[in-house]
């Protein structure tokens, strides 16, 4: 890795700009109500500065291959040459630049979209969320090592928390925001602990894709914790109970910043560490976990009556599918799906949030359809190529191909269902022109031609419709094309899944009564079980109640009873008894001594008393006795 002096200054420029932008975000949150236009200009300025610094620092490296991208490494905790050191640095490569720019652009478009923000009571929190989300995404995707990426993910979590802050002041909104922050923070800590375990085992967590040896034996647990923690940022099963919690917070803020941004930020280290994780077999485990989660959550979304939780479920399922594709196919396909999910989430949610009136009904319905096509992976859009490649890569494994196809189908089904669900529930009202213009801009950005170079997004084998260089090839290298049989199998699965999902969605949701809601009515307990996340919340609630009961018992029996009453009581009993015993013994000894002394003194005292009481006999006896004694004494001599 090069470490030219110039790179350090570029890194300083990036970090410095992001820090200033973060300060601007804090100012917007804290004092936004007093600022003109609730501080949208400040947030916009911050996002613009992020875009400018990205362009300025990237200017010289546009044409550089991945291996020669410069990076600068600094020691954060301990000097960088130490084995246990936590190193940080900025890596300005293609994927990082692309995602950072997209995030900044989407944040800017969100801030500009008056039809979404002007209805919210605490707009400054939304603007701050947009800026913070942009900073977090940039940090996560430009980070050279996992440590700075964790900082970026933390900022995106904070961004999501702010986006939910439009209704912190009511009980439900507060509960949703707090639960979101708690679960995401716990997931982040889990991945951080995994990283600690890896660092302890000597694994270098540098996020530059290169062929890697498997993890040492003791580090497998760390690797597993790391990937599970990062995957949990997509709000998978069993954390999907949050997806369906009702909240009056801005739906677009919730979906874009609380869900999409933090999921994309978490995918940054996952995508970059792919060689290391693949060599250790951890990615296979993650792949199956994410596949099952995708299917479960997709079906959870199908049973939702309201478009908000349904869309939340679709976002989660989409990123779950992206993770699954990363595991079974690789970063090329995963990145394509990531972009598709991000673009589709943005378009979907903005369209759902604008007011519905006669003038924009047709246009917004068309945009919804196109957004669903992007998310479902239809040809012509960026997601198609990734979906196709992933199925080509697993075509030899029938089980895996079927499972992946099923997951693809489930996600597509939910996406198509939203096309009919959203318009029914949109609030009436005159939409601002930006409400449609902005989604159209983003839809254009999601076209496959800009990412694969192919007009159909790689639908035609051999890419005869290639009109420009493929950005994905530039980022991740050209993928293997696969033999014709595999391509045919994969194409059949993909087209069949996507179009079949469209047909079923139309049949179940597009013709009058929603059949999924009918199932809800017919089998309410079954539907409720699925709708609320397959009973996971109840299970964890029981665990928590058990932990609270244990805590109460420990507090009652150990702290208050044992150490508060019994031990002090026992100590007091022992001390009191011992003291009483010694006291009695002491008293007895004193009495005995007193008696002994009394006796020892009593006889001579009595004698003297007798002498003193005037009895002459005694005086005579004494005198005579004394005389005899004296005579005898002198007679001897």
């Amino acid at each position, binding site marked *: 890795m090069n470490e030219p002096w110039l790179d350090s200054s570029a890194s300083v420029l990036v970090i410095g700009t992001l820090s200033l932008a973060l300060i601007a975000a804090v100012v917007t949150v804290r004092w936004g109500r007093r600022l003109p236009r609730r501080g949208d200009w400040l947030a916009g300025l911050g996002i613009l500065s992020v875009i400018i610094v990205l362009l300025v620092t990237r200017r010289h490296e546009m044409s550089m291959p991945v291996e020669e991208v410069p990076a600068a490494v600094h020691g954060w*905790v301990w000097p960088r040459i130490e084995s*246990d050191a*936590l190193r940080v640095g900025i890596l300005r490569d293609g994927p990082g630049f692309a995602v950072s720019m997209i995030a900044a652009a989407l944040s800017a478009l969100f801030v500009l979209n008056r039809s979404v923000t002007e209805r919210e009571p605490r707009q400054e929190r939304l603007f701050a969320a947009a800026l913070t989300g942009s900073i977090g995404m940039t940090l996560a995707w430009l980070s050279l090592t996992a440590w700075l990426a964790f900082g970026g993910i933390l900022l995106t979590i904070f961004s999501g928390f702010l986006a939910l802050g439009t209704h912190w002041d009511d009980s439900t909104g507060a509960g949703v925001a*707090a639960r979101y922050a708690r679960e995401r*923070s716990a997931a982040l800590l889990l991945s*951080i602990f995994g990283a600690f375990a890896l660092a302890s*085992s000597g694994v270098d967590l540098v996020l530059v894709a290169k062929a890697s040896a498997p993890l040492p034996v003791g580090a497998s647990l760390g690797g597993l914790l790391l990937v599970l923690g990062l995957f949990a940022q997509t709000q998978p099963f069993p954390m999907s109970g949050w997806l369906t919690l009702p909240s009056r917070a801005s739906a677009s803020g919730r979906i874009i910043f609380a869900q999409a941004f933090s999921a994309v930020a978490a995918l940054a280290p996952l995508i970059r560490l792919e060689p290391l994780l693949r060599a250790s077999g951890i990615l296979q485990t993650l792949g199956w976990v994410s596949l099952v989660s995708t299917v479960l959550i997709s079906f959870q979304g199908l049973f939702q009556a309201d478009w908000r939780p349904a869309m939340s479920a679709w976002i989660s399922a989409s990123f779950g599918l992206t993770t699954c594709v990363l595991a079974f196919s690789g970063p090329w396909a995963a990145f394509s799906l990531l972009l598709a999910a991000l673009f589709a989430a943005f378009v979907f949610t903005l369209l759902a949030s604008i007011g519905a009136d006669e003038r924009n009904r047709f246009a917004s319905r068309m945009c919804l359809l196109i957004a669903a096509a992007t998310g479902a992976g239809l040809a012509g859009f960026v997601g198609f190529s990734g979906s196709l490649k992933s199925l080509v890569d697993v075509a030899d494994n029938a089980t895996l191909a079927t499972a992946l196809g099923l997951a693809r189908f489930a996600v597509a089904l939910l996406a198509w269902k939203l096309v009919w669900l959203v318009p029914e529930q949109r609030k009436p009202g005159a939409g601002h022109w930006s409400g449609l213009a902005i989604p159209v801009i983003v839809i254009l950005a999601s076209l496959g031609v800009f990412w694969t170079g192919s007009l159909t997004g790689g639908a035609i084998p051999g890419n005869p419709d290639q009109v420009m260089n493929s950005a994905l090839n530039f980022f991740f290298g050209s993928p293997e094309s696969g033999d014709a049989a595999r391509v045919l199998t994969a194409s059949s699965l993909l087209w069949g899944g996507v179009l079949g999902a469209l047909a079923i969605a139309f049949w179940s949701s597009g013709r009058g009564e929603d059949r999924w809601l009918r199932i809800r009515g017919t089998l309410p307990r079954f539907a409720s079980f699925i709708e609320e996340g397959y009973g996971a919340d109840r299970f964890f609630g029981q665990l928590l109640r058990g932990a609270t009961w244990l*805590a*109460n018992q420990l507090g009652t029996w150990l702290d208050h009873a044992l150490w508060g009453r019994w031990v002090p009581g026992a100590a007091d009993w022992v001390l009191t008894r011992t003291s009483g015993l010694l006291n009695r013994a002491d008293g007895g000894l004193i009495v005995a001594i007193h008696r002994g002394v009394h006796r020892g003194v009593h006889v001579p005292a009595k004698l003297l008393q007798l002498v003193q009481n005037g009895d002459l006999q005694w005086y005579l006896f004494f005198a005579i006795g004394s005389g005899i004694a004296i005579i005898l004494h002198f007679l001897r001599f």
Partner: protein
Amino acid sequence: MSHHLITLMVFLPFLGVVVQAFLPRGEEQTSATMSAGVSLAASLGGSICGLLLVMGMQTQMADLQAIETLPWIGSFAISYSMGLDGLNALLVLLIAILFPVLIAAEWNQKVGLRGMHGLLLVLQSSLAGAVCAQDLFLLFFFWAMSSLPLYFLIGIWGGPRRETAAFRSMVAAALGNALFFGALVLIFYSVEPHTFSIHELTGGKLGKEAFKLLGAELPVGGVAFGLISLGLALRAPIWPLHGWFIEVAEEAPPSVFVALAAVSVPVATYIFIRLAYSLFPETVAQSADAIVIVGAINLVLGGICAISQRGLKLLLAYVCLSEVGLILIGVGSLSAAGMVGAVYQQLALGLGIAGFGLFSGVLMSRTGESLFRAEDGTPTLGGGAVRAPMMALVAGLVVASLLGFPGSGGFVGHSLLMIGSYSLHPMAVVLACVALLLATYYLFTMYRLVFLGPEVEKRGRALSDLTLREQAYLLPLVGLLVIFGLYPKPLLELVRPTVLALIGIPK
């Protein structure tokens, strides 16, 4: 200049007490302000000396610096010996930062302001002296002295059951000090020539000595280590000897509990590290597993007990208990990273606990309420983020540091502790992870119930945001937590050489 800075740092607060005692008593408000001003000046004086000492230290140097030595009680080879190295530098910094903050926090104390400030100054002096002492007797002298002001602070300014709490704290302190002193006497008479100098006793000299008790030959090192460990465990909240700590948490005023939990407890762990690794390296190497087990128990039990807490005071107490367990895991890791992490975490823990305790104190003084959840689970506070956004920001940063989020001081300590301990004690690190995940639950729940949601209508008094004075001492505190998290390099370069030298002794 640096030759007498330690003495100035230790005795300036004492001088402040004396000056304060002789201040004329005029009109009440003027007298109180003057007294508070003198106390703050004395405390700041000591703190500035401490800061100058730390800033003037040479990095990459393991030996003692700023040494001051004077013979004291020559017949018992007791000397006034003070010095600074990587092990105690961060604690000097912690004391320098926190005590002026505590005095500022009690600026408007209505009852016995002079007395309270005086006792805090005595505490500052005694803890600073204990941290810098390089003579065992001198260390014991200051350490034992530190228990007295705490007794009065709790017993006079505490809650309804303050006398019981103060008595229990004194009993625990007295027992602990007695055990500690027994160890000192044993050590003194076991070596020839007799000495209390830590430097002269360093290197495992005691490991070869034995003494006879009731016919049995006992190793001096093992017995003395056990006595010292038990003595310090009684002063720090080490499970299961933590009962007095919980009671004090409930009854003591917030600033007093902060002085105990955020300063006195880290000093106890520092003394353990200093004496264990210097005087008993072989015993430490043999007992490392036991130290880690005790730490893990502390960590997990503290975390579990915190889940059911409904009040800020007890929540803070159990958080402190849990974090001390983490420090012990680092101490028992016998690795440079783990030990440096333990030392660094003392600073991060101190600042984090102080922030938590002080913002809790402000909240309680505003609302008259220390419980954030009623028995039926309903919030008793709530809506704090709207009425007190600065307080919400401070609380958020403190919670982030206690959980060890990247960019906070807690992250640096946690990272070194866990990286250093994982290879030898993976189970302990796994338990630490579980405890920290539990902490995510109860700290976020506390935050949600205090700062989010609607305001509770029946609450006694309205919540208002931090005043300028409160911002003046709280914002720098949390600012330092962020700075120490983003740029820990200067402090780590102070600590590391000493730790490497110390680690080499058991190995």
